[in-house]
Structure formats: structure tokens, C-alpha cells
């Protein structure tokens, strides 16, 4: 279904960015909708069969396919390790991405180095694609910092907890990219729940008006803690975009190939100056919301089982095996690599230092602040009073 209207073209404007040419509001045709279901771009069925799509196809070498598989397996392993570390009391909390590996690796591997990512708090797979050391992600969950990596070292912004805020940061960043005349693109993640926030909708307004090179990647895992997707919308979320004047596409979020193909296409549109795109990756949160959550209170086991049959990793494995793209040695090596990653994560986390107490006064301001200086000094003196024997 195309959503463009002639009027849309007429009023489309370029805000800036010398290399960008024109803009369009049309998505490629999405096809193959079964009656009664919204269109969903799929390239790999749950059974691991490769299917064709007229618009969003992709041609990957066996090596590339193995790479995607490896990314998903290692991400899942990392995630399981973090969940275990939480159970052991090493982390205060963990937000598992179980089930969303294809959405994250597919979209994450569509990026160029100079692109920039704005994640929420569950994009561990995307972080992996950006080359962020996964143990960096654990600091905030261990309670030793509130983020703690330099976003510019991997063009991967800090995790953002206040839902939806980052979509505006992504849009502003993309406006800056356009101003610079660069042809990078920006990828902003958010969830089905966050789609209801004013900020997300304002980011649609701003990105459309400025024709900013940003791609919105909504992982619709069908739950916002205990609230099912029907509490956020009564039509598929990808359709939201058209009313703001840019295309929306729904992709099978458990199909890494489809996620890669569609995200690549959308990032290319952004680079060419054709403006924003909304991708809705239809997926499922297979774990609890976080380790603090108890999903048995609000959803049926059967639902989860249904989605296990659509597991993103199993389907790529089936395809790799059926096509002979990977041999037993590959899977064994990957298992070993996985073990090593788990060990690395455990070791690093357990050794992760608690910052010095004085650190709470650091980095509040870049240029200093008299009150912070005063409080720092008072606190230091107070702490010292204990060291000198009893305070009083």
C-alpha cells in the first residue's frame, strides 16, 4: 500500500544538506499480505525456507550468513549470561532481548561505521554490531554508572530509559548530519509501548519537516511490561508513519535477513536525502520484561510457546544447514566462542570496580559549579572524619 499523495510531494521540502536530493514519501510496495493480516516483509520463513520478496531482496554470501548467525548466537549467549549474573546478585537488574536477536542484528548490520545509533535500554544486539564491548552495557545494570561508555567511540549513544526521548535526540542528530552535508544516517530504536509517547510523535513531525536522515526502528515485541499492544494502538504501528508523510514498513522481526534488507533500504533512502522511514519489526519478547518482572501474572505460556516456534536463531540455523552454508566445525567453534564470551563477561563483571564515592560529584558540569565544589569538599571532610577515628 503506498501512502503518498500528490500534495505530499508538492509540500515536501529540503531543509538542508547539499548532497541530498529530493524526497519522497512512498515506501516500496509491500506485498504478499494474506487476507486479514497486515503486510509483513519476510525473506526467511520460521521453518528456515528462503522466500522471495519483490521489493526488499538481499543477496548474501555464505560467510555473511554465518556472520549474522554468529552475531545472534553470541548476543543471546551474552544476554543469558547477564540474566544469570542478575540471579547471582552481580547485577541489580537485567532487561533481556531474548527473541529479538534478529531484529537487532539485522538492523544493526545494515549500518555503516559513520552512521549513528540511538538505542533504548534493550539494544544489546545492536551494541554488539557497533563493536561496543558488551561488558560496557552492564555497568548501569550493576549500578556502578548510569551509562558509562563514550557514545562517540562507536557511534552508539547511551541507553535511554525515559521512553521515547531518544527519538528526538536521533532526529536532532540527523538534522546536524544534514547540515554538515554528510551522507551518514541515524537509526533510532524504540518499543511498541514507547510509540504512544508524545516525544516519538514529535520526532516524526520534526524528521518529516526537516527531511532528516533518520530511520525509526520500532521493535514491536507486543508487550510493554504487562500491557499488550492493543493498549497502544488499534492499527499496525508501521501505518503511523504515513500520516506524518513518510513511509512505514512492517518487517518480520524474527527474520534477520528481512530486517537487514529493509533497514538497508531505509538507511539508503536517508542517505539519498529522501528523509525518514519507520520500520516496525514485528517480534516477541520471549523473556520477562526485566528480571524484576513476573509475566505469569499477565500472559499465557501458550503465547510464548507459539513464538518459540518462530525463533530467529533456529530459523537461520535451519537455513544454513539445509543449504550447506555451515558445517559442524562452524557450529562447534561458535559454541566455544560463546563459552569464552560467557567467561569473559563473568570475569569482567565480577571485577568491575565500584567507583569511588567522590565520583558522584564528577561530570555534573563541564565547566564546574561552585555548589558542587562546596559539597564535594564538605563530603570529603565528612568522610575523612570517620577515618580519623570516631566522627564525633
Amino acid at each position: 500500500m503506498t501512502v503518498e499523495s500528490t500534495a505530499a510531494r508538492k509540500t515536501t521540502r529540503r531543509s538542508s544538506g547539499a548532497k541530498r536530493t529530493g524526497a519522497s514519501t512512498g515506501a516500496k510496495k509491500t506485498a504478499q499480505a494474506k487476507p486479514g493480516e497486515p503486510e509483513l516483509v519476510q525473506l526467511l520463513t520460521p521453518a528456515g525456507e528462503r522466500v522471495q520478496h519483490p521489493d526488499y531482496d538481499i543477496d548474501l554470501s555464505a560467510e555473511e550468513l554465518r556472520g549474522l548467525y554468529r552475531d545472534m548466537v553470541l548476543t543471546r549467549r551474552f544476554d543469558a549470561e547477564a540474566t544469570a549474573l542478575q540471579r547471582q546478585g552481580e547485577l541489580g537488574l537485567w532487561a533481556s532481548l531474548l527473541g529479538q536477536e534478529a531484529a537487532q542484528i539485522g538492523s544493526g548490520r545494515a549500518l555503516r561505521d559513520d552512521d549513528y545509533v540511538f538505542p533504548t535500554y534493550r539494544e544489546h544486539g545492536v551494541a554488539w554490531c557497533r563493536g561496543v564491548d558488551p561488558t560496557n552495557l552492564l555497568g548501569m545494570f550493576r549500578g556502578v554508572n548510569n551509562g558509562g561508555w563514550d557514545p562517540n567511540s562507536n557511534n552508539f549513544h547511551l541507553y535511554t530509559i525515559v521512553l521515547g526521548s531518544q527519538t528526538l535526540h536521533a532526529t536532532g542528530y540527523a538534522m546536524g548530519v544534514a547540515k554538515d552535508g554528510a551522507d551518514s544516517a541515524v537509526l533510532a530504536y524504540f518499543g511498541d509501548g514507547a510509540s504512544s509517547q508524545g516525544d516519538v510523535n514529535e520526532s516524526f513531525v520534526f524528521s518529516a519537516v526537516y527531511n532528516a536522515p533518520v530511520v525509526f526502528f520500532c521493535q514491536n515485541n507486543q508487550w510493554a511490561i504487562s500491557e499488550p499492544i492493543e493498549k497502544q494502538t488499534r492499527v499496525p504501528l508501521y501505518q503511523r508513519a504515513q500520516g506524518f508523510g513518510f513511509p512505514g514498513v512492517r518487517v518480520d522481526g524474527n527474520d534477520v535477513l528481512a530486517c537487514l534488507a529493509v533497514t538497508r533500504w531505509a538507511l539508503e533512502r536517508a542517505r539519498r536525502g529522501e528523509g525518514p522511514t519507520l520500520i516496525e519489526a514485528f517480534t516477541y519478547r520471549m523473556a520477562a520484561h526485566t528480571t524484576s518482572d513476573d509475566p505469569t501474572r499477565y500472559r499465557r505460556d501458550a503465547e510464548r510457546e507459539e513464538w518459540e516456534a518462530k525463533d530467529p536463531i533456529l530459523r537461520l540455523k535451519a537455513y544454513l544447514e539445509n543449504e550447506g552454508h555451515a558445517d559442524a566445525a562452524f557450529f562447534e567453534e561458535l559454541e566455544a566462542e560463546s563459552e569464552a564470551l560467557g567467561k569473559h563477561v563473568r570475569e569482567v563483571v565480577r571485577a568491575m570496580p565500584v567507583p569511588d564515592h567522590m565520583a558522584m560529584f564528577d561530570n555534573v558540569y563541564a565547566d564546574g559549579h561552585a555548589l558542587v565544589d562546596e559539597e564535594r569538599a564538605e563530603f570529603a571532610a565528612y568522610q575523612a572524619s570517620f577515618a580519623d577515628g570516631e566522627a564525633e
Partner: protein
Amino acid sequence: MAVQKLPLAKALNESLRTALENDPKVVVMGLDVGKLGGVFRITDGLQKDFGEDRVIDTPLAESGIVGTAIGLALRGYRPVVEIQFDGFVFPAYDQIVTQLAKMRARSLGTVKMPVVIRIPYGGGIGAVEHHSESPESLFAHVAGLKVVTPANSSDAYWMLQQAILSDDPVIFFEPKRRYWDKGEVDTEALPGELHRARVAREGTDLTLVAYGPMVKTCLEAAAAAAEEGKSVEVVDLRSISPLDFDTIQTSVEKTGRLVVVHEAPVFFGSGAEIAARITERCFYHLEAPVLRVGGYHAPYPPARLEEEYLPGLDRVLDAVDRSLAY
């Protein structure tokens, strides 16, 4: 029931249940308040018993939640809104400050705004960013709002009842780290006034003023001080707006010394207002300046540093000593 020993969280739950039973116009709304019963289970079981029409899971948008609650109030409902955590009230701040607080005055008193906004607040639970803040100052400064916070189960039960009965908007701060503390609740006793402070412990040498989670800390500090022969009076503020200066004044006229304790940053915090006004009222009674113990002028730190950031027993006692040293 009548008298029961209940955790603070359960007292709130019972209070909401009573309110829903007593008045068909009361509705509870917020994120995950339905089947899940809220992330802290304050609304546990309520949707099951009162239906989806009265205990409403909302879309994930705080401005939308408060904005529609205002509309419901205009239609004659009495919405009780849950904000999931302190740090997530800000998307609703505009609706609270520019609409909820001012609607009655704007209408020259022709409409009322019986909306309660429940906010679990404060730290001490080892949470991630935005889950441990104490933003009460940001509401107390705003005319048209009332701001209260219970420190124990009985107040949790009764103050929530009273807030729901009030025709004014009430920001109801819940001391989340005390949710599991048990206390007696008498559901038949006549409750005290909603906006009156309470002397939680009597003393003669110094007054400690606290509210919400810090009342317990101050009671512990007073007990510790007693062992050293210092008699410390503890006032549980209960209401931040209006603020019961009379009760504090009475206490300070007796003790001559005042220390105010809260988790929120000291700078522009409640302690400032109390210090300013009590100094004005008790200028000739004060033996020492009003001292303040609270958070630092820094974002709430990561969990592993929060113990140092939060006012604890030692920091309260240190301030007591400093005051007594004047």
C-alpha cells in the same frame, strides 16, 4: 478489618479498594495497574474485582494519562493516577502545572479537580536511573497543587482516602523503600487532618523534621542520640503543601534547634523553605541556624553509590551534633 498490621504497600492497596467501593466515580489509572497490579503491586487485584472500566491500563504516555484524568475529572470522575516511578512524572509535568493546578482558578471556582497523582518516590532500592528521585519541591512550588507523603501504614491508608476525597489535585508521594515496612492500620479510627504534621517522638534538645522515607531514619537517629543523652524531637511533616509550620514552630520554640532531613537535593529543597520560614517565626528562639541534610547537587547516583548520597543515620547525627555545638 478495623485494626490490622499491614505493610505500607498493602495499606495503600486496601485504601484504594475502599475508595473504589465507596464511590463509583473513583477510577484508578496508569501503566500496568491492571492484571499486573502495578510494578509495586499497589493495585493488586483491583482490576479483577472492579473491572477494566474502573482500573484502567493506559497507553504508555504520562502526559496522556494526566491529561485524560483531567478530562475525566471534568466529567465528574475522581481519577487516581499512578505514575510508575518518580523519574517518569516529567512528561506529565506540563499537564500538572499548567492545567491541573490552574483549572479551578481559571474557571473562577466553577470546576473542581479531584485528581490524585500517586508517585512512588525516593531511593534506597538499588534501582537504575530515574527510579530513585525525590521531586517534591518541583510540585510544592506550584500553587494549586497539594503535596503529601505518608511515612507509615496508617497514614498511607488514611491520607490516601483523604486525598481521594479532596476536591483539589493532590500529589501523593509514596516512600517506595518503606513499602514493605509493616505498621498498624485502624480502618475505623477517625483519621487526623490531612495537612497536619505529627510529632512522631518527643524531645527537648533539638527538633528533627522529616517526611516520607526519612521519618524512620530520623526516629532511628533520635534513638541513637538518646543513648548519648540527647533528647531529640522528631516531626513527621506528612504534608509538604500546605506545610504545617505551626507544629514545627511549637517544637522549635521548645528545643531551640532544628535540622531538616530529606532525600531530595538540599539546594532549593523543602529544607530551604522550612529554614527560611521557621527562622522568621522563631528568630529569637533559635540557638543555632537551621541545618539541612539532604541529597547533593548532582543527578541521583548509580545504585552502588546511593548509600553515600542518601542521608543516613550518621549524616543525621552529624548534623545534630553540629547544631548542638552552636
